[in-house]
């Protein structure tokens, strides 16, 4: 139920942003729209919100046809990539905005705003202006403001895109926990596969205006429907005729049956993992080296370095 998108298409001039999209987003789940920039995922989110009108097809939200419904009547919470905080209003007034528009009693508004300020940890900043907040705080403000109207669906456009890596990580853990408490149907757009894999219940991979695959993070990672999905969700390398993930390769320092032999051309250590490039004996001169990722402990146990012979086998 919840959100049903049927045959939705959208063009901007000659550019096809969305082509015949059919998608059902179940109630209460956290769904990621994942794909490369310009692939149509933000357009799809804006169509669900009513910020764009589709050229064809329909959008049904909780059983009601919303295709021609203007954005202010859809009761969706939309969080913009750059927060779109009301700069002339304090944090508290920003959050109260939707309730003031709905002409709720002042006591009710104040109670709700207090509750939300606590939820997003901004209570002590209630009387500040958005310009006095950090990026992460502004994003939480935008989220609280969208939640205040008790939306049917919560839509987030690249919610953590403009934040630095550490704050990003904190906020996405926090979003996951928040969602587990509130159970509001949530759709967020991201181009970061790690973010999608970590936070969401299900992922919709969108590229060039089409849906490539829909599934749980595990489904997508283990059973990608296309080489595109496989390569988009994480690093891939070629071993013989197979396309495989670099950490799905066993590496041995001694000759092993059913394996490919070669030598290590390069090693790079990145934090806890070690990336090896292996040139196979059977390879042609312009073949790419095989990428292998092992943990630092495995690399130490193996005791190999650049130039050494190794044997590779798929897991």
């Amino acid at each position, binding site marked *: 139920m919840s959100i049903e998108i049927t045959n939705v298409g959208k063009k901007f001039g000659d550019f096809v942003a969305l082509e015949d999209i059919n998608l059902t987003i179940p109630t209460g789940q956290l769904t990621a729209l994942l794909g490369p920039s310009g692939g149509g995922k933000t357009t799809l989110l804006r169509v669900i919100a009513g910020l764009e009108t589709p050229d064809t097809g329909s959008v049904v939200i909780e059983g009601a046809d919303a295709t021609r419904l203007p*954005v202010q009547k859809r009761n969706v919470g939309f969080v913009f990539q750059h927060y779109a905080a009301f700069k002339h209003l304090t944090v508290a007034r920003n959050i109260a905005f939707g309730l003031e528009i709905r002409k709720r009693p002042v006591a009710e508004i104040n109670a709700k705003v207090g509750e939300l300020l606590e939820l997003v940890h901004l209570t002590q900043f209630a009387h500040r202006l958005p310009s006095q907040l950090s990026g992460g705080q502004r994003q939480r403000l935008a989220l609280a403001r969208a939640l205040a*109207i008790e939306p049917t669906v919560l839509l987030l456009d690249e919610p953590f895109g403009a934040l630095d890596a550490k704050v990003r990580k904190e906020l996405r853990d926090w979003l996951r926990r928040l969602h587990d408490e509130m159970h509001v149907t949530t759709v967020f757009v991201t181009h970061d596969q790690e973010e999608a894999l970590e936070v969401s219940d299900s992922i919709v991979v969108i590229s060039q205006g089409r849906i490539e695959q829909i599934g749980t993070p595990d489904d997508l990672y283990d059973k990608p429907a296309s080489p595109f999905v496989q390569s988009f969700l994480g690093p891939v390398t070629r071993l013989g005729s197979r396309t495989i993930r670099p950490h799905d390769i066993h590496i041995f320092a001694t000759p092993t049956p059913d394996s490919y032999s070669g030598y290590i051309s390069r090693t790079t250590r990145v934090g806890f993992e070690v990336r090896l490039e292996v040139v196979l004996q059977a390879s042609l001169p312009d073949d790419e080296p095989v990428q292998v990722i092992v943990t630092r402990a495995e690399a130490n146990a193996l005791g190999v370095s650049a130039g050494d012979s190794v044997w590779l086998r798929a897991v």
Partner: protein
Amino acid sequence: MVKTAPWLRITLRVVVIGYLVLLVAWPVGLVARHAFAGGFGFFVHALTEPNVQHALQLTLIATFGSVVINTVFGVTISLIIVRNEFPGKRLLSALLDIPLSVSPVVVGLALLLVYNPRDSWFGSGLAKAGIQIIFSTPGIILATVFVALPLVIREVVPTLQEIGDEQEWAARSLGASAPQTFWRITLPSIKWAVVYGVVLTLARSLGEFGAVKIVSGNIVGATQTTTLVVEERYQNFDQPTAFALAFVLAAAAVTCIVVVAILRPQNTEA
């Protein structure tokens, strides 16, 4: 910051200050001195003369009309230009600058061609309906509106472009209608640009001379605005009155600009 040699810095300052003194401060200061040359009593006497009073009133009416009309249309046109794409947008934008680039005298003549009750079909039509534009207050307001037309727009358009439309969309998604979004979000965001545009419009309208002279007919005690009185008195050797009125015009404009400069927050982000 780039270091400038001390001698160059001092020379530059002297040039700038000298330029402003010779061009602005000294002449305007002399106007003030001449306004009070006959003493404060004479200054008040000059301003209370019936024809002068009438001219001041007429200037106030024309300025008020110009400010109200240009603010409402200026903000509306700015929103249309910034928030919409349509064919001919660049042409419209260029047209809006015409009042600033064309001489007010030409503006006056152009208005005369359209609204005169004798050989313009439009003007004579209006005259038959009992509406007189030329040689009366509506014509004076019209001419003043015309010359001050772009001032609000030129202040508001860049601000609207800078704030973008995300806040407006956010307001809409929270349930606000288009008018609610305008009053609660857009207008507060462009408040200072509008205030600045109003002040510039006010100052420009108070001082309008050329266009008004042509469309008003310059009839003493009837269609003569303050600037027209200044010219008439100066030429008829009633210089004290001319200077008293000139001082009032200058003081009003300067006061507006100073007040806004003080009120406007240092941090113009809000």
